[in-house]
């Protein structure tokens, strides 16, 4: 080993360590502050306690908002997955007039019309429809934003399913409904699971749309309540915010671990899964 090699090796590991620290340090607070008897903004070894957890559970809106998140994301996820599955199957197997143009426009829409770029008309639309403060309405808006990409990801999955399965079932006299229920659905299950997780994670972290459309604090999901808690300021909130952030992050991290364990971390047209 030449000295130059040793220096390069050390430099290499120092670089990796610096990058690792850059990514890890901001997150470690999420593991320490929730259980610290005197939580602060900085990272430090905690004086272990459960009292912050108890305080968070007693907060008037903390658990409600997590429940609201569940309702909001549940509706958005189910609508996205069901509608995308139907559309993806049909677009994969049947040549509807204008299909290619439709697919091109969907791909374009999925990246061009973001919630940010369209926040004004979406807000005005919901205001005029009287759907401000409607969780169902907000869930539909979130679902529409995810639908074009979801259709695309699912269509990729369905395209990969061999047509011979359906053909055989047809030969043996299965009706279209039976083919869908007993042949297509079971094979498409990994794709559907991917879309379920993907849309849930996206909806769970969506801040802008619920922030725009749900102005009533009793209806706000966790994403919006976290900001409200922070805006109120004061040291009292340092007992609630860390635990709340942790509770709010757990579902996403758990789903991520589940997916990467079962299917490996996969890439779908540049979309996190």
């Amino acid at each position, binding site marked *: 080993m030449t000295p130059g090699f040793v220096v390069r090796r050390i430099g290499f590991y120092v670089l990796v360590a610096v990058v690792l620290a850059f990514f890890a340090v901001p997150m470690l607070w999420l593991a320490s502050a929730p259980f610290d008897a005197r939580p602060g903004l*900085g990272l430090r070894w905690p004086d272990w306690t459960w009292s912050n957890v108890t305080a968070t559970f007693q907060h008037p809106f903390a658990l409600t908002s997590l429940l609201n998140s569940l309702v909001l994301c549940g509706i958005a996820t189910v609508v996205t997955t069901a509608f995308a599955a139907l559309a993806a199957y049909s677009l994969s197997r049947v040549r509807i007039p204008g299909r290619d143009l439709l697919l091109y426009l969907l791909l374009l829409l999925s990246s061009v019309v973001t919630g940010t*770029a369209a926040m004004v008309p979406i807000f005005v639309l919901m205001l005029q429809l009287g759907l401000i403060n409607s969780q169902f309405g907000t869930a539909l808006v979130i679902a529409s934003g995810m639908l074009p990409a979801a259709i695309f990801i699912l269509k990729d999955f369905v395209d990969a399913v061999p047509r011979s399965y359906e053909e055989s079932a047809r030969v043996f006299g299965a009706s279209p409904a039976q083919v869908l229920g007993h042949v297509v659905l079971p094979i498409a299950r990994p794709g559907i699971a991917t879309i379920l997780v993907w849309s849930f994670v996206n909806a769970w*972290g969506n801040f802008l749309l619920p922030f725009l459309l749900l102005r009533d604090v009793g209806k706000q999901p966790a994403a919006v309540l976290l900001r409200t808690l922070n805006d109120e300021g004061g040291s009292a909130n340092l007992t609630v915010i860390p635990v709340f952030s942790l509770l709010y992050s757990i579902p996403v991290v758990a789903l991520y671990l589940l997916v990467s364990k079962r299917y490996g971390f996969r890439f779908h047209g540049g979309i996190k899964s």
Partner: protein
Amino acid sequence: MRAADSDVAGLGATRAIAFVAPALLLIGVFLVFPALWTLYIGITNYQLTGPAAAQPRVVGLDNFVSALNDALFLNSVGLTALFVFGSAVIGQNVLGFVLAWLLRRVRPSLRRTVEAFVLLAWILPGPVVAYLWFAVLSRDGGTFGLLLNDPATAWLVEYPMVSLIVFNIWRGTAFSMLLYTSALAAVPPTQLETARLVGASGWQTVRDVVFPHIRGHVLTNTLLISLWTANDFTPFLLTAGGPNHRSEVLPVLIYRQALESGQLGYASAMSLLLLVGNLVIALVYLRLLRRRA
């Protein structure tokens, strides 16, 4: 009719259209209609409250003319360009590639650890990561201040744009890392070996051997992360555009004009710029995809 299109389940065109209809209905109402409506609201003086709320008047191109003469709007366009260029085009792109390049050669356990943290930064909910960075960068006890032994500096207030750029690099590098990791796997190992044998330095290898293979990926990656960064609303959670408009990127400006000042027509005219920018990037991106297919 290609085999790929044969209607194997026997759905028939009518049922097929009925299957697509619910999705298209939602997309039409909440995505296509708002996008087109932006054009109309943008040429009116529509406001959230007051007389112009009940009876908006068409004012033609007035909103666009005032936007182009509005120092706040021009400031915001410049900041957005800086944000996209600094955090996505340079920051995420370079760090993502460096990570993918470095992690090829390390022990699997170390590699998995680094990747896990980088990915975690990407998948945690936006409001949580915004708060984490708010904590890191705040004065009187923030971790960054403690590390530098400088607890008096409020980083988000004194260096708002630098803070946002560093934050967004942290937040989004995972995507570039994943993309470049899979791109690097496609570079022929024999060429890398040859480069090593002729004594090429790391930089020469990257420039002359690796880059020609991944040029398409670099372009794809840059387009996508630029689009996402330009449309990112998380800066609102960190600085809300402040202090004194110094970090007011376009999404934040649109929100403040529309919801805080109530100038819906004017904000809509500004949104149009973002929509057109997205459209241009998306069209280039789709062209690239087609050429490769």
